[in-house]
């Protein structure tokens, strides 16, 4: 018998997401999928299942959920207040959600995108080999109050497991590499771009994030005559008003605005998760540095399962864990698996 998750109350921007739908760029459809891919891997590691499983992405705040059978859940990404029938839950951990019990997930306390994973994954029918809603492309929709989602067969049993999360929720330094149009900008403009401190604008969604800044805009000499070229997630597009937009997984496939550089895939979650107003700086690195960073990230991501530890269940300690998390965005486990160069 299939278990189901019922959305008793839907937050404003919840959708089913997985690692996206590659292979359709030539037909005008970008990969889409979870805004924070690290969170998908963390949820999978905590539940001991594949990172390909679909989860619920919650932008800004969650909602209320019930299940018709006992299921396992895990919570990752931006920390949100969470409880089951009033009992507070640790974030970045797995829990048992009993049949009929009410899981309540509130607003984000850091970051933007929180994730609710279930043991066995959300098992909605795939569209073109993926369950990800691609809202800009017209695939799937936001989840609504009353939606009932099928859950895949859960092969695991363990709950009360946790993982230290990388601190990617408060903006900070984001590494970029030169891209195909970087040299269309004069070197002084690129230098000014990397010296600047930007703020994540409120104008942001799964397609892209606008960067707010003081001073002059950024432009190229041939800005308006550039022929439309391929767009990839991470591209920093300079729009007509001189403001940069970092393009996310649901971006368009082609575009005529010049790209000043491209964010390393491993640093893209930091853009996705930055809250409105969070400060962001772009650091230009050479290809070799970028390759090393990205390879290291990939191997750390695949080794996340080894970092999973039992959650200390003593209520007093749990409270402490929660408060610790709210301040730093990380629970008190030893190493930060995503910390680079230090």
């Amino acid at each position, binding site marked *: 018998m299939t278990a189901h998750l019922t959305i008793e109350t839907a937050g404003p921007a919840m959708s089913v997401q997985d690692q996206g739908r590659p292979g359709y760029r*030539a*037909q*005008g459809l970008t990969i889409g999928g979870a805004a924070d891919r690290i969170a998908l891997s963390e949820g999978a590691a905590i539940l001991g299942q594949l990172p390909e499983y679909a989860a619920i992405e919650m932008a800004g705040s969650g909602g209320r959920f019930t299940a018709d059978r006992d299921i396992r859940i895990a919570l990752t990404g931006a920390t949100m207040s969470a409880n089951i029938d009033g009992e507070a839950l640790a974030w970045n951990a797995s829990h048992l959600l009993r049949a009929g019990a009410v899981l309540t997930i509130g607003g984000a306390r850091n970051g933007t995108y929180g994730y609710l994973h279930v043991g066995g994954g959300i098992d909605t029918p795939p569209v073109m080999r993926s369950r990800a809603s*691609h809202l800009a492309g017209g695939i799937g929709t936001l989840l609504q109050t009353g939606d009932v989602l099928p859950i895949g067969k859960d092969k695991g049993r363990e709950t009360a497991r946790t993982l230290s999360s990388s601190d990617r929720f408060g903006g900070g330094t984001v590494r970029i*590499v030169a891209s195909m149009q970087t040299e269309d900008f004069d070197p002084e403009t690129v230098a000014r771009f990397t010296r600047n401190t930007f703020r994540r604008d409120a104008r942001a969604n799964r397609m892209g994030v606008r960067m707010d800044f003081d001073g002059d805009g950024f432009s190229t000499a041939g800005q308006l005559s550039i022929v439309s070229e391929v767009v990839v*997630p*991470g591209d920093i597009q300079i729009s007509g008003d001189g403001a940069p937009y970092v393009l996310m997984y649901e971006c368009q496939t082609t575009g005529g605005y010049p790209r000043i550089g491209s964010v390393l*895939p491993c640093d893209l979650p930091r853009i996705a998760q930055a809250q409105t107003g969070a400060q962001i700086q772009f650091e230009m690195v050479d290809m070799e540095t970028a390759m090393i960073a990205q390879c290291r990230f990939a191997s750390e991501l695949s080794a996340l399962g080894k970092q999973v530890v039992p959650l200390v269940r003593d209520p007093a300690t749990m409270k402490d864990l929660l408060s610790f998390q709210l301040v730093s965005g990380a629970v008190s486990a030893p190493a930060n698996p995503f910390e680079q160069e230090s």
Partner: protein
Amino acid sequence: MSEWPKIRTVGLSGVLVTFAGAMSEPGNRAALAFRSAVDEQNWPEVTETSTSLVSTFLEVDLASVPLAALTERIENLLEKQDWLAAPLPAGRKLWHVPTLYGTELAPQLEEAAEVAGIDPAAAVQEISTSRVRVLTIGFAPGQPYMGELSETWNIPRQQGLTKSVPPGALVIAIRQLIVFTNAAPTGWRHIGQTAFGTFLPDSDQPFTLSPGDELIFPSVSPAEFERIRSTDTSGLGGASREVLK
């Protein structure tokens, strides 16, 4: 050595081969033909290919694939033929897409004709009999950029944005036409309305068009358009197709 074709990296996501500095017919054919040649090579490091107007993109994980060896492979393939003289892809189709020009469903016909300097009836006469080719698919799933129309239609985008045109809207600018996949804002002018679905995600063939396909947008009356819209269940809005030899 000529400046073109140009090989450039796109972040860590892949390599772009560009055949011209601006939209051109030979550049577009080169991009399509080169993409197809790359696909035939089955290079293991290339995970996906696509074209934009005059360039071919090879998606490659540059964090793990050495760029120098890949660039050499691409250069060798580029030297094999004159890509600018390449023929169009095989298996192309010609589509006839019934279109309602003007009326409240396509409110910018008169404005577009005025900018082009001809009267609206002549505009409909010319556009509804022009055969255009899909130059590239992009921006939204299955959404075609089609051209090139006569020099008359070298009209700029409008200054402001139209807040939203509906799916199936036929819009015009810079000698090109687009049929919109989804409701979207646009700087192009909305001159015709079709019921032609360019992206049908639940169908066996989610993407209706391929680059290289050709289209004609014959004019139909409001009554005929309404009949098509209320009876069509295929998503193709009364369009018919034939295979081009």
